[in-house]
């Protein structure tokens, strides 16, 4: 394989799981170990439980609910699991999984299936006990594990959504509002706490503090100067950054005095600056003299000149669009880059010397655009969970996963709120009861809409039992008035 091909393949691979892999090695400063572990478990569970899910669910697969996704678009099958160490761990544990055929055997005996995560855990825990436990005991352990698993299964009818919403919403009251926090490096501020959580469920296109974490490849990660090289290629440098002063000389021209020291620091040549300005194709002349560049536009209109001047000042000489600053951080014995501002597509595609599979950004909509909806789902889970975790709030990942799944189930990121999930509900009454009441009622009238009263709010409004929990039952016994 030629070098170019390799790079290409790598890029493709990166496309598949940058978000997940990027998470792999990154570990936020304050991490409650216990909860981290749970993310991991749930993550690997997702990978494994999925294929045999229907089997697992068989105990009372009495009826299939209404034709799946006849409306509302098919929910994508989560191919990639939840983020974080899950994936790596899964692979690794498979590699050094102890040989315990007994476990599979016992499970197969009654056609029982467990999530793969549990199976490998079982094997790992039973293997060192081969001497201590006899076979009968081993069998008991496996069987008890299975029955415990069945007991812990969620029950049909469970209001999983409400529980998830409460579990994520309730701790919100305990979160701090002080938004800024340092992300690893002291120099970079990142929004955290309640505002960040709101930002995530709002599905904002631009987070208030976009930031990327870029890992370097083997060749570059141990060398500070090489790391610096890459950093300087990413970081945006505008004319304004390297200019000492920009002044009007005469009526129709102005000069830019270049700070030589800055230029050297950023590895930029003055002629290059001049050439870049020329490339703007402003009618007029650009000349260089010592440390000053003189720009002579053809027009004499002051307002126009002012606009030209601003354009030149914002002219990007170097770096990627949107990345305002790059900070090099040392982690263990390798260097990595953290950026202020985010441009995932460009970084993955154009920057050399980085480990493409580990690139990460906190801009979820960007991830959705570049890597697809599954990656965005993982990113939502990761980001939301991290916010809760960082505040020391213990919330089960499954709740966060459900919210992320709901937000991404149509293939596009939908906001939790009026412009997304709530606004697209099929029930008129549910929409009217949430926000913009009158508009929904008027629209419903002109469209001749019908409310089938299938949701919670609608049934509360008409005063009927809601179709959740014990209300899921649709079969009733008729008592005759006469006999008892």
């Amino acid at each position, binding site marked *: 394989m030629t070098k170019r091909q390799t790079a290409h393949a790598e890029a493709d691979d990166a496309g598949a799981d940058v978000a997940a892999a990027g998470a792999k090695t990154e570990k936020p400063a304050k991490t409650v170990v216990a909860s981290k572990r749970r993310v991991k478990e749930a993550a690997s569970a997702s990978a494994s439980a999925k294929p045999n899910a229907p089997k697992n669910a068989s105990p009372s697969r009495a009826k299939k609910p209404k034709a799946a996704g006849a409306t*509302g678009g098919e929910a994508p099958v989560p191919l990639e699991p939840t983020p974080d160490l899950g994936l790596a761990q899964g692979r690794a544990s498979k590699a050094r999984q102890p040989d315990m055929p007994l476990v599979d055997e016992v499970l197969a005996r009654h056609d029982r299936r467990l999530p793969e995560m549990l199976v490998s855990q079982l094997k790992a825990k039973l293997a060192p006990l081969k001497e201590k436990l006899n076979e009968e*005991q081993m069998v008991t352990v496996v069987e008890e594990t299975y029955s415990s698993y069945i007991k812990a299964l969620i029950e049909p009818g469970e209001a999983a*959504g409400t529980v998830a919403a409460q579990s994520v919403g309730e701790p919100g*009251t305990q979160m701090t509002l*002080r938004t800024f926090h340092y992300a690893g490096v002291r120099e*970079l501020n990142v929004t955290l706490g309640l505002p960040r959580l709101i930002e995530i469920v709002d599905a904002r296109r631009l987070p208030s503090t976009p930031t990327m974490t870029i890992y370097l490849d083997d060749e570059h990660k141990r060398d500070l100067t090489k790391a610096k090289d890459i950093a300087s290629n990413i970081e945006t440098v505008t004319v304004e950054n390297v200019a000492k002063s920009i002044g009007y000389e005469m009526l129709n021209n102005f000069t830019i005095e270049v700070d030589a020291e800055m230029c050297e620091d950023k590895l930029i040549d003055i002629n290059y600056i001049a050439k870049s300005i020329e490339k703007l194709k402003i009618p007029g002349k650009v000349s260089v003299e010592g440390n000053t560049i003189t720009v002579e536009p053809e027009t004499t209109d002051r307002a126009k000149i002012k606009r030209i001047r601003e354009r030149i000042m914002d002219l990007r000489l170097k770096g990627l669009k949107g990345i305002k600053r790059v900070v090099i951080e040392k982690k263990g014995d390798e260097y990595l880059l953290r950026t202020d501002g985010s441009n995932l597509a460009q970084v993955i595609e154009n920057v050399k010397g980085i480990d493409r599979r580990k690139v990460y950004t906190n801009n979820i909509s960007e991830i959705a655009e570049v890597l697809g909806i599954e990656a965005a789902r993982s990113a939502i889970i990761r980001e939301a969970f991290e916010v809760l975790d960082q505040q020391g709030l213990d919330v089960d990942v499954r709740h966060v996963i459900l919210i992320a799944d709901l937000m991404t189930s149509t293939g596009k990121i939908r906001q939790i709120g009026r412009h997304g999930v709530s606004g697209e509900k099929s029930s008129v009454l549910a929409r009217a009861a949430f926000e913009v009441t009158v508009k929904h*009622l008027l629209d419903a009238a002109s469209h001749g809409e019908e*409310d089938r*009263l299938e949701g919670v709010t609608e049934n509360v409004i008409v005063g009927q039992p809601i179709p959740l929990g014990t209300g899921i039952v649709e079969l009733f016994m008729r008592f005759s008035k006469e006999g008892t």
Partner: protein
Amino acid sequence: MSLSELAKSVHAIKFGLLSPEDIRKMSVVNIKAADTYDEDGVPIETGLMDRKLGTIEPGQRCQTCGNRVGQCPGHFGHIELARPVVHPGFAKLIYLMLRATCWNCGRLLLSEEDYRKYSLRMVKYKKKWPQFRFKLSDQIVKKAIKINECPYCHEGQFKIKFEKPTGYSEERKEGPKRIYSNEIRSRLERITDADAALIGLDPSLARPEWMLLTVLPVPPSTVRPSITLESGVRSEDDLTHKLVDIIRINERLSENIDAGAPQLIIEDLWELLQYHVTTYFDNETSGIPPARHRSGRPLRTIAQRLKGKEGRFRSNLSGKRVDFSARTVISPDPIISMNEVGVPVEIAKQLTIPERINRYNLEEMKAVIANGPDDHPGANYIIRPDGRRIDLRFPKDRKVIADAVDVGYIVERHLKDGDVVLFNRQPSLHRMSIMAHKVRVLPYKTFRLNLCVCPPYNADFDGDEMNLHVPQSEEARAEALVLMLVQEQILSPRYGGPIMGGIQDYISGAYMLTRKSTKLSRADASQLLTSAGYRGELPPPASTSPEYWTGKQLASLFFPKGFNYTLKSNICQKCDVCKQEDCENDAYVVIKDGKLVAGVIDKKSIGAQQPESVLHRLVKDYGTGMGSYYIDNAFKLFLAFIDSRGLTIGLDDEELPESGRLKVKADIQHAEEEVAKNINAYHEGLLERLPGRTLEETLETQIMQILENAREESGKTAKKYLREDNTALLMANTGARGSLMNLAHMVACVGQQAVRGERISRGYQNRTLPHFKPGDLGAEAHGFVYSSYKDKLNPIEFFFHAMGGREGLVDTAVRTSQSGYMQRRLINALQDIRVEYDWTVRATDGSIIQYIYGDDGIDPAKSDHGAAVNIDKIIERVSVGGK
């Protein structure tokens, strides 16, 4: 009423427009008079309060249906408008329809080809993806608008302008020409049903021309009741006022038309009628001034009645008022069970439960009836099998009634001990905010609750009030008991750990009881165990001469046999190498076969919101019954012990010995010198800039760091010099209340006050207060509080401290509203999602959200702190059982 009778009586609700015929058909009276009542207070016929519209006065019968106040639902009337008027809610849609259809022939402006294409597509969409048909309609309308010549009658189309809120005009060659409502109506009439369907209407329910009103329905008087003030003056509802305006103008308009008045006058009146109708529907329409009451208050018309938090939807339809509820102040009661709630007798006498008499409860019910409404285990009403209610307040001799009742009667009896009720504290943020308790009727006037249920309700007793609801049906009670009982909620679905458990004194008490130094005489041990409800044998004493029992022995009596667990307690110092059982702090808790072998019980073992605690294991492995048993009994032991010993803090607990005080002082002085050094370096330009920071920011971070370290250091010093038996320290260490930082604030140094995460820097120019020189960068000038709370804060420090404190208060206020809104949105978006019988997670329309819940189908509430199965536990059990 049983569930089966209730099952789905409303299957669906269809929305649509009322046609003029519909309105006339359902109307009981044509309203013509603009008045309500005459001088005698009698409703005027054909007036807005016509008796046919329903009754609002008690005692009167409705002239239409013959029912009395509570039964008569009210009946609509109508007003015949002299000229059609635009319904303001559909003004925009009308505008689109005018532009999308031909003014001449009324056809949708689409080429025949497009028309066929879209018609086919619409049919397909309706069948397959009903929700997409509106998007298709938008597309069709957009396309039709662009066409300038009618493909059918080949008339050229004019540009139409929309003047908000309800005006339309055409740009003709001879200049703009207004399109009046009757013209609009006749144009819309020409739209065929098929075209209307393409535009997105359902012509069987909403013909386009119905969006122009020729008849206005008049809501029943029950919807807009007039109120009589004490002075006897009648005050009419806002809607009535608005309707009066409409009738008046309508009358004048038709008079003028009949009299053949000039066009200009008619148009003016017409315009005015339009204004009144517009504000009648929505008084906040942009572009026109809101109609006002005489007092200047804007009228609350139809749209305002529906909208917002106080509107019909959120306040009356999504939330409803209920009977059989009570609310009062709460207070603590450590003696009642966590599953119980203390209900004041007075409330118990008001709230009733309908109980059907059968042969088993006949005698009891007779006694209850004889007691009547005023004596506690009494009853307020009897319902005879024929449905008649008998009020027990009035009969003189209730004995007679009691003797007369028989099987089949229903008695509405008072609440008594053991009844199941729902108990709630707002804000109801999670499901543990409403739990089922068993009633315990108690004297005095507050609800009493066990302290262990404070965390899930987030309740304290500084004046909190709580609500109580009494389920009335057998089904409701059964569900409450099985699903909502407090003990069933010990494990939170949020993280799969206990949310209830010991707080404050429970923890201090447990620690004091179980620490090594506790030795109890036979009398003491017996006393403690008795008050904890222990009825078994006293175990053999730990030592016979002198005879004593250890606290650990007593605490062990409440663990089940065969219970094994080890954990590190809260007082653990987190040494590098754990000495386990030999820990000098006794911080390594070992429970073997239900015996507390080593370690002290503290927050990590029995605390609320502590996953992987002893309490968690008990509930998880032995069931919720074990959980409530342990909390109701063992916890009483801890309280009994702390009762017998006492626990208090006073000024002497904040006293540091001289040496300690000097050390704190020295530490702070050292920090101050450091700060001064940095400031000097900054002034001399020797300070090295941190990457990505300005010089000033660098200095600021460094100073903050130094001062923070200084405070920390002083805290450590405080801890070191405080006496072993310091109760404040005890509480901080065991996790009962407070932290070391709180203690350090009181004892050593309060430290840096911050606003917006930075040192205080605002106030005067270049300085915070006039006490400092401008440009002073020192610690004192920017809110460092040297003193401790005990020492006293000087006025400057006090001021800075208040600034920091204020920020905290503002923060909380802002946060609650923000997180409240987020929670509302989350709930609204997710509430319909449920797990189906095939383990998929779906929304109401059947769309799949997850193929299996949470990627492994595990219910977090049933999980072991997130894990599906605790394999270690199983292995341990099996290996022990095998030997």
